[in-house]
């Protein structure tokens, strides 16, 4: 059963780290439940064994009473301490487990491939971290202790019942079976709707996230009213499933309790008949009736907790689904290391030498080092995001060490896709990509990406200071290095003009900065990263051309002797490239440097002079 597996897996988080604490919790719950059971017996004992004898004896000796009360006080105190203990320890356990699960989810999410993020709505992912984890908290901190405690007292009472009278116990048992049927029906319905409710929340969450993110577009298009209608639809669906789920849940408790009441009457009637026939003593029946009450009460409590358990399990399933999502495959074993050159030989070193090499461990156990040059070679590469739809056809190209290679072409020709293949955001269908002669599938993904700097068209910043955002490129960078990178990206001046300079807080959605300024920051980030190979994907599209020119010169200087891939619409940006590829519908239709392509007088020439269109 899927549910059983989920529960087991969930409990494994608890037992893994908190065995000791859990044991104490369970013992404390047992003690605390037993103390309240003892409490019921205490009064009977008080009346029968202390007060009644006292009434009969002339001395009125209060010492036994004092003794009993002192003993009870101690027992009660133990109960209170145990209650506190399990409440307190349960916090450690539940919060600790939640903390661990969240961390595991996030760590795992970092290992997923880009296509996962393409396919999943952002809001849905976020909902897993909040709503679903939250239901787990309810279950761990409340439902489980309560259910356990109820089970303990029910067992104790059940034993007492059996001890008192077997036949009457069967009557009670019959009632319990009826209760189980009812709760199965109602609980089944309610859990169905609770699961639906969580799904609906996820959907609504996704919608809200998307619309809040695009709220400015909503304003510009006067789309508020339509938005409200779409929102209302989702909101009403949620309200419906919520009402139904809660309704069944709310009805459950009165049902259980009143079946219990009816059972009470049955026991009383049958017991009465038995006692008239002298099969049972009156006191035994009275006690038994008391037991019936203490048996159904915890049962009601358990039924209350069923829903939050069901909800939590549905949430847990989604959480485990994320955790079980297959990781981005990485069979690479070639790693990137710093080396120093001695007598023409490469020697691995810990220091940052500015010289990198591929550490290649061969199957026969030999170890070779190959200097990182930044040569990239595509051999008949074919690729499509979905299996049947090929986007890139038979791409072959060669970028030599230190070359500046540019891609030109209409929007949608596949330029960005090519760069996404170099760093293995996506894996190719056919052909081969070699990096310094090594098949990139053999290179460890992290090392491959570390060797490739990337500035993307969509500038993603993180909430934090400007300094922190630039430092993203090199985590141990000094302030001086950051300023130098900002200067190179020509971002220094505008940063300085902000009231708080480099310590200005920017938000992830970029309020406060212009698009061009955000691009300058991401260029500074890449400059600080100082990678052996750089990919610029429309990195300067929102920057004015004067600034761009300065940035360009700076980058050219920085990347001198290293390989650079450039995608740009402004042909002035790429004119000085060593190799220009013109792409059309996923094929390379022209290649060469500026002069060669101009002489060819075909597509590139047309684009450059504005005479032809390839779209």
């Amino acid at each position, binding site marked *: 059963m899927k549910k059983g597996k989920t529960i087991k897996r969930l409990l494994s988080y608890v037992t893994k780290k908190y065995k000791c604490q859990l044991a104490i919790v369970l013992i404390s719950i047992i003690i605390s439940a037993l103390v309240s059971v003892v409490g019921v017996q205490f*009064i009977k004992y*008080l*009346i029968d064994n202390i007060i009644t004898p006292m009434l009969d004896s002339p001395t009125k000796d209060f010492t036994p009473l004092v003794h009993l009360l002192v003993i*009870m*006080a101690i027992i*009660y105190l133990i109960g209170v*301490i145990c209650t506190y203990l399990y*409440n307190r320890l349960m916090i450690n356990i539940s*919060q600790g487990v939640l903390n661990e699960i*969240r961390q595991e989810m*996030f760590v795992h*999410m970092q290992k997923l491939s880009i296509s996962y*993020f393409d396919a999943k709505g952002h*809001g849905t992912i*976020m909902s897993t971290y*909040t709503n679903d984890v939250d239901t787990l908290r309810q279950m761990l901190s409340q439902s489980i202790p309560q259910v356990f405690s109820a089970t303990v007292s029910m067992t104790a009472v059940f034993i007492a019942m059996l001890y008192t009278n077997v036949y009457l116990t069967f009557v009670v048992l019959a009632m319990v079976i009826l209760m189980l049927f009812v709760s199965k029906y109602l609980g089944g319905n309610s859990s169905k709707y609770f699961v639906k409710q969580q799904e609906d*929340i996820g959907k*609504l*969450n996704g919608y809200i*996230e998307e619309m*809040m*993110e695009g*709220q400015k*577009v909503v304003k*510009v298009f006067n*789309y508020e009213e339509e938005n*409200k209608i779409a929102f209302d639809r989702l909101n009403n669906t949620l309200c419906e499933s919520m*009402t*139904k*789920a*809660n*309704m069944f*849940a*709310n*009805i459950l408790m009165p*049902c259980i309790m*009143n079946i219990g009441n009816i059972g009470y009457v049955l026991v*009383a*009637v049958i017991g009465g008949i038995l*006692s008239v026939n002298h099969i049972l003593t*009156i006191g035994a029946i009275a006690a038994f*009736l008391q037991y019936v009450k203490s048996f159904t009460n915890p049962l009601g409590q358990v039924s209350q907790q069923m829903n939050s358990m069901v909800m939590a399990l549905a949430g847990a399933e989604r959480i485990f689904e994320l955790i079980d999502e297959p990781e981005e495959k990485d069979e690479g074993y070639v790693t990137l290391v710093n080396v120093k050159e001695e007598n023409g030989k490469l020697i691995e070193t810990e220091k940052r030498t500015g010289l990198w090499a591929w550490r290649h461990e061969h199957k026969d156990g030999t170890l070779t080092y190959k200097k990182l040059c930044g040569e990239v070679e595509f051999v008949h590469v074919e690729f499509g995001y979905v299996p049947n739809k090929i986007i890139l056809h038979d791409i072959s190209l060669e970028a030599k060490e230190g070359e500046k290679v540019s891609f030109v*072409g209409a*929007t949608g020709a596949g330029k960005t896709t090519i760069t996404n293949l170099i760093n293995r955001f996506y894996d190719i269908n056919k052909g081969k990509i070699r990096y310094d002669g090594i098949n990139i599938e053999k290179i460890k993904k992290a090392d491959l990406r570390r060797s490739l*700097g*990337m500035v993307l068209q969509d500038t993603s910043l*993180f909430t934090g200071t400007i300094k922190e955002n630039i430092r993203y490129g090199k985590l141990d960078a000094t302030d001086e290095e950051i300023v130098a990178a900002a200067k190179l990206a020509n971002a220094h001046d*505008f940063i300085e*003009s902000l009231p708080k300079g480099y310590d200005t807080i920017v*938000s*992830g959605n970029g309020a406060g900065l212009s698009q061009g300024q955000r691009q300058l920051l991401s260029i500074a980030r890449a400059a600080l990263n100082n990678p052996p190979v750089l990919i610029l994907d*429309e990195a300067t599209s*929102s920057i*004015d*051309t004067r600034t761009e020119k300065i940035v360009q010169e700076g980058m050219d200087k920085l990347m001198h002797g290293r390989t650079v891939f450039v995608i740009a*619409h*402004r*042909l*002035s940006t790429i004119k000085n490239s060593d190799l220009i590829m013109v792409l059309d519908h996923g094929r390379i239709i022209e290649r060469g440097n500026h002069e060669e392509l101009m002489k060819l007088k075909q597509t590139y020439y047309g684009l450059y002079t*504005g005479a032809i269109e390839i779209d």
Partner: protein
Amino acid sequence: MIKKLATFIKEYKKDAILTPFFVVLEVIMEVLIPFLMAKIIDVGIYGSDVSYIIKIGTFLILAAIMSLLFGMLSGRYAAKASAGFAKNLRQAMFYKVQDYSFENINKFSTSSLVTRMTTDVTNVQMAFQMVIRTLVRGPLMMVFALLMVLTISPKLALIFLIAIPFLGAILIYIALKAHPNFERVFKKYDALNRVVQENVQAIRVVKAYVREDYEEEKFKKANDDVYKNFKAAEKIIAFNSPAMQLTIYTCILCISWIGSNLIVGNSMQTGELSTMISYAWQILASLMMLSMVFVMIIMATSSAERILEVIEETPSIKNKKNALKEVKNGSIEFKHVDFVYNDEQEKNKYALKDINLKIKSGETIGIIGGTGSSKSSLVQLIPRLYEATHGEVLVGGKNVKDYDLHALRDAVSMVLQKNVLFSGTIAENLRWGKKDATDEELEEACKLAQADAFIKEFPSKYETVLDQGGTNVSGGQKQRICIARALLKKPKILILDDSTSAVDTKTDALIRDAFRQKIPHTTKLIIAQRITSVMDADRIIVLQNGQINGVGTHEELLKKNQIYREVYESQMKGVEESEKR
């Protein structure tokens, strides 16, 4: 706060009132039932009177059925009322955000708005359901129990009268102490959400820089913050049940002591003592319930505050009364306009300073200027996305503040620089411009924006489904879809804020060509980095540090404006050279 929240019960008022009504009936039955039960034992069993047992038993079963009925009804109404209340709260927030201005939007992060509309509302909803059910049931049970205790022995009742306020004080103290802690928890939750959201959005950057470990560290910090604060808050709450148990156990011991003395002194019966104790348990049970409600309310208070924060935020841009519903023409005028972004960091920094500008209806205006020269700020004042700090912005001869916002924004169509496409088909995205647009109209707009051809190349054409944010089309395609969307509005003024940056030069030229021929009477404002995008405009505005540096035609500026000349030369040199060859 409660009053304000209560206004959102609205159409569920009936359910919200019926719930406690049926709860009261249910409680009456529940009090009656133990009474009947006691009768069965005391009279029926001890008197061995089977017919009496059956008689009272029938009553009892009737009472149980009634109780079941009332319980079901109260449960049903409670579910309806609370789910409805939550629905209304979410709706109120979402609707309110729709009224926000850009300034308001900048104040809340996306992730925080999402948590407020989901997690926080759920917290308030649960508390609300507790309030209308348990908060009625608990005290009522307690009052009944106390009344019974009073009839048995006023002296013993005194114990409860001391204990209950004492416990109440403790519970309130715990609640007050926990509240600020819970507030912190929710702030940390926001931060955690933000890390996840930004990570998901920037996943390409994360992967490209191989910063997974760094992100994990960042998340760990946020995660541990939640953990620490939540633990601190719950630690305080953990005193709830033990405090309650302690009180009730003390009461029981006191009752036993005093009761025993009373019995020995012949002023009480033994049976009464055990009844007293069972009422003590009933009081305990109702107190337990109350304390649970208490915890819920504490948590919900922080949530409720956050919800009200969204609802009570005053939109900084509002419609005037008797606002103008029609924009006469596409003329624009800026009169001594200053603009300062109203946020903490940017205060006292003029984004725009003393802008004076007159644009005739139907003119094409190019705007060019360095990064951060406030080009976007300038055009955002026209559809009143932000409000000018000083001076006046006029559209169609009237101050933009005099227009109905809808009418103004219908007339002024803007393609934002950071534009967003939504998950759904291309056609659905386009219809944002005009809801009831026919397929022909969509096609026409897309032809104008040079998007028709590539859309038709997709297998599902206009029905192609876009991912959230339009990640499955290229940057240039996205921009052209956005332009087509804006064109569908048939605006009087069209503003393109650097909206063709990812479109190639040729296509860009075709778009402008189409504009000239097909929508000549629309005023067009084009912000661009590429000089070719603005060169053929009627007039070009050169912005520099929030001020107008020069206005004129291409030729005029080339002659007299140094910035313009430099930009021109840096971009056009290559082309001219090649033409010479």
